């Protein structure tokens, strides 16, 4: 794991805000859990816990530390706030390949991102639950005893989603959070696709939850008051 001291090395190292979007129950949180912990939980409860999770992605030319923001269920009731999209450098728009309405919903989210998010945002369209499609169902069925699971439940052809993604210049992958297939690949593709100009140095000004005021980090001087140090000082002050 790269230490802070190594951050001075020529290799680019940067924090990137990634937001998840997509219909409820398409597997957004499961994708993150697979990427962050290499884990999968059947019948996972809707997301509760942290405001965002972090995970590093080491590439030959750069190290990207993703701050992965989950919707915390707010996509369900029209309750995602503008602060959610703000300063997101990349978005993962997820649908379920077995559920046609979920792609329609994904297209809406893409349009919403193009309207609301930063102009340079990198969007990846991800069709999840690939394990439920026939070819995968057969290859991954060694442990499955239930024949019903071998059924091909794919409802959205790869070609259809891929064509749409190309039209809108989105990265496109089909994944399985359950088997892990393509999950790492999606995040690596995103990490590669983020333009260098939007990468800001790690620990730079304004990397709070709300993100720093846009482009202020490149000004050579800071506008954001460092609350982390101040908080620590306040706590230490209390202790004595």
């Amino acid at each position, binding site marked *: 794991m790269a230490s802070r001291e190594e951050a001075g090395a020529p290799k680019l190292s940067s924090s990137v805000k990634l937001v998840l979007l997509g219909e409820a129950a398409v597997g957004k949180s499961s994708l993150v859990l697979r990427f962050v912990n290499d884990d999968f939980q059947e019948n996972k409860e809707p997301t509760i816990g942290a405001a965002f999770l972090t995970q590093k992605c080491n590439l030959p030319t750069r190290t990207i530390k993703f701050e992965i923001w989950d919707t915390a269920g707010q996509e369900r009731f029209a309750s995602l706030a503008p602060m959610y999209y703000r300063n997101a450098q990349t978005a993962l728009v997820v649908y379920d390949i077995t559920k046609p309405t979920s792609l329609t919903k994904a297209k809406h989210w893409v349009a919403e991102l193009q309207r609301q998010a930063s102009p340079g945002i990198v969007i990846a369209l991800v069709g999840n639950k690939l394990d439920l499609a026939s070819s995968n169902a057969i290859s991954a069925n060694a442990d499955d005893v239930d024949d019903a699971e071998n059924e091909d439940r794919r409802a959205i052809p790869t070609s259809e989603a891929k064509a749409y993604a190309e039209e809108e210049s989105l990265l496109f992958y089909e994944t399985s959070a359950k088997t892990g297939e393509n999950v790492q690949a999606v995040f690596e593709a995103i990490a590669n696709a983020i333009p260098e100009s939007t990468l800001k140095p790690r620990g730079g000004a304004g990397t709070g939850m709300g993100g720093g005021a846009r482009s202020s980090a490149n000004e050579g001087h*800071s*506008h954001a008051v460092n*609350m982390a140090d101040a908080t620590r000082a306040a706590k230490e002050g209390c202790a004595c």
Partner: protein
Amino acid sequence: MSFTDNPPLPSTDWDILITGSGIKQSLLAVALSRAGRTVLQIDHNAYYGGSSTAFYTHSDITTWTARVNAGHEAGFSHAELVGGVLGRGFTLSLAPDLVYWDSALLRMLRAADMAESFSWQAVGSWWVWLTDEEVAVPAAAAAAAAAGGGGGALLMDAGVKAAKAVAAGKKRWNKGRKKTAAAEEETVGEGEGAAVADPPPPLQEEGATTTLRKMGGFREVACTFEDVAWSKDLSDRDRGYLGEFLRFVMKHDSPDPADQKHRDIFTEYKTKPLTTLLTTLFPLPPSATTSLSSLSLLPTPPATTPLSTALPALARHFRSLGNIPDVRSAAALTVAYGGSAELCQVFSRAAAVAGGINVLGRGVSAVRPAEKEQEQGEEEAGGKQRRRRYKVALDNGEEIGVDWIIGSPSDLPSTPTPPSPAPQPTTTATEQPTALYRAAYILTADLPTLFQKKYADEAITPAAAVLMVPVAEEGGAAVPVYILARSWVTGECPRGHTLLYASTTHSYAAISTAVSRLLQSQEVPPGVLLSLFYTQTHVSPTNTGEDAEGVVYLAPEEPGVVFDDGAVEEARGVFGRIVGGGEEEGFMRLPENARRLLDEMEEA
């Protein structure tokens, strides 16, 4: 957004229903969710924040303006939108509040592990509009009064110092105002050091320049030791009294027996206006009084503001000053991306992260108590939830059971029982003006002078500044117009723009005057892209307190320039009432599992 799933709620049974997503509602949504209660937070608006919301598009603004003028936005009236069409990249906030370093909000956010959830920026400088003639008026009359009166005796040792300052000042009165001689340092050092934490500056060379900036008719308000020490507008004697006054501000509520004299002065002058104190015990020139009063951010002029109101406001300023890391000349912060509007959004998300459910675009249509007879017969056997106190019909036809309903009266159209006489609100019982005239301006220029670093050794460049213009009222005291200027680095407008937020109890005309003075004070007066005027009425809290068991009516939000810490205290009180049983201390506390998750991430 209109294309969401709009599924049925995940449950028809909740511990708590919160209506609205203003500061208090959103705070309570986080606090109660974190305390393990099941929380449903709804808002009939399609956006967060209620009266503290922000607008992101031109149509957001026009829609709101129309609703205000149709009487559909409680607490708002007389909205006027002037100017062009707003493009992309603007955030116009109804609550661009500034937050003092020494505030209940920041203390609470730190304890809640949420301080870093925001991008905090510094409010760099305060400016007041003062003409040269106003600045030239010495504290002559006041000085005479103090020399002959009992002021010195009352102040005891402080009085001695003040008298020394008077003597010194008298000797050098004429010369002293012109030059900042090294001799002045003696008197300055005595009073000022206590209030301002900075070490004394090196001895000033003859003829050195002041650290106080000027911008057209605006003068920067002294905020550091250097400012006061080297000000060309203050005499030695003024400096002495100013130091004593600041010491009094800091110690007026000190429990230390040694500060008895300060408490005595406060007790004696509590009901008298700030001006009275600043012309008798601590005689200062009128320009200094105006400057000091601008730091209070109070809507009333110093001649009518009672000391009981003015002093806490000044104290929070001076207790904050010098403590913000890397920007010692600042006392206050502001939250990027819309001030309190951003607070509301982040709190609501934090509530969702803690397991609460937020629903926008949904209101309450009816509330009725759960029927008695059912309650008796059905002390449910195994597994079934116990009966909730209230049945609430939502405006999409869903019905839910809840134990607690929290909201402002305007969000709860039908009350379960006729409200009993309201208990007194717990907030400061001072007379609040009934209407606050407010305006937001978008300028088509940066105002670099306002946002410059004050000192080269400060690492932080300010993103906001406060200006105060006293506007004379016929036959009365000058009423302050406050302008909060926010630069593009707040993320609220594109580069090459500046946002101004003005407020006063005087009139829209006073705002126009004040803003035009600011525009004219720039080398090239900037253009105005758009302005939005509106009136915010302080709704008298007739319907607050706990009217029926399980129903909490929140007091209306206090509009103002500075974040109302009373909102935090009120939310804390409501939280304590609901959770009870020794859990009150857990207000906003992060649950243990979430805390572990955070710690793990920090280590990674």
